[in-house]
């Protein structure tokens, strides 16, 4: 059952009977969380659930929607992700996907700490561990990032050597514009290097640093 339908059904039942069953109350707790992004807290008030239901219905009536998740990963309560050597501690919904993936790359069994996670989490981890090598066609300057279509081709030996040279220049503190000037006449695999092709090689050299 979807979010809006659940709200409608509980609201209709409440309108007819004036009471809320235990399961309705549990649903309201969940809906409150999905709507406002924070946990419903009872503080011995007699009408907490009714008030919460009214707030949710008003929110929907005003055109509000179920809140978007800040991350596809949601940690179970009672656990934190603390990576040795990393200061940040992740908990609850406050878990940026990139940090989670970095953690899972080291500790994949920690996926059991999450109550929600994307189906393709293993692929995300694999991608993190093995960054795609952009297919760089030095001759034309075309770069194709679609690895599935192109098989993530590696650089030709000449292009790889040029990346190494650029990397040395970067380490030496040379500015990018100077590097572009220096290598603009270069040929790779017999063909002149295009502006875009050179820019992509510089990017690769930066990553390799």
């Amino acid at each position, binding site marked *: 059952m979807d979010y809006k339908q659940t709200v409608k059904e509980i609201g209709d039942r409440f309108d007819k009977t004036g009471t809320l069953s235990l399961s309705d109350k549990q649903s309201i707790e969940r809906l409150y969380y999905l709507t*406002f992004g*924070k946990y419903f807290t009872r503080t*011995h008030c007699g009408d907490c659930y009714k008030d919460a239901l009214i707030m949710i219905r008003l929110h929907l009536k005003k055109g509000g929607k179920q809140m978007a998740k800040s991350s596809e990963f949601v940690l179970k309560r*009672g656990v934190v992700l603390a990576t040795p050597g990393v200061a940040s501690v992740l908990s609850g919904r406050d878990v940026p996907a990139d940090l989670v993936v970095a953690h899972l790359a080291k500790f994949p069994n920690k996926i059991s700490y999450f109550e929600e996670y994307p189906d393709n989490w293993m692929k995300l981890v694999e991608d993190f561990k093995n960054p795609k090598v952009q297919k760089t066609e030095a001759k034309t300057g075309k770069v194709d990032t679609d690895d599935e279509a192109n098989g993530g081709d590696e650089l030709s030996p000449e292009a790889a050597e040029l990346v190494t040279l650029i990397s040395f220049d970067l380490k030496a503190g040379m500015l990018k514009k100077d590097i572009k000037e220096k290598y603009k006449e270069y040929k790779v695999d017999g063909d002149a290097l295009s502006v875009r092709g050179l820019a992509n090689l510089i990017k690769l050299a930066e990553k390799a640093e």
Partner: protein
Amino acid sequence: MAYCDGIISRDIEIDCDNLLQRGVEEIGVIINRQDIDFDNVEYSADNPSIVTALPLKAGKRGYRVVIPGANSFSGTGSTLATGTYRNTFNHTLGMVVLANDPDVTEDIIDGLANGQFVAVIENKNKNLNQTVATKKGFSTFSIVGLQQGLRATTLEEDRYSEETDGGWNVVLTETRAPKSGLFFFNTSIEATRTAFNALVGESAGTESGDGGDTPGWVDPSA
């Protein structure tokens, strides 16, 4: 089969840098034992008296217990339970419910009467002056009931009680637990407090009881 634990391996002496402090802080967390994700509970590899992860099942939460006063959770402690072949421990958790109305009896007292629970309490004795960085604050949080479950052994109300003013006096007991004490600690006191707060749904760094705001979310009621 191993001979497990019939030895001691440490001097019995006073830690002058971390003098023992009596008592428990005012706020604890009680969890329905069936809501704990036992498959993923983790203990420290170095010390099995330390629980490093106490995950709850999806959608489940713990409930805060606030006991104001000079002696919060009075009656909390452990005693030896002698057995024929092996001695164990009985752990008790004392608390009061300073309210008495239909919601309290329905949502709290009736459940306490027959359920099994796990509690996490914050000790005043925290060991904050530990020289080993990874042990700083490692005695801050205690877990009671994780092994055998806490069950109610006292549930009484006295309308003329001087102490509870007509509220409920509660004692939960875990009987015959193999460990003398379990602590909750992961990496640092800050990280552990984050996990402790997360048990009842609070975000890191928030102290309000509304669950705290999570970045990226907007409260339309605000």
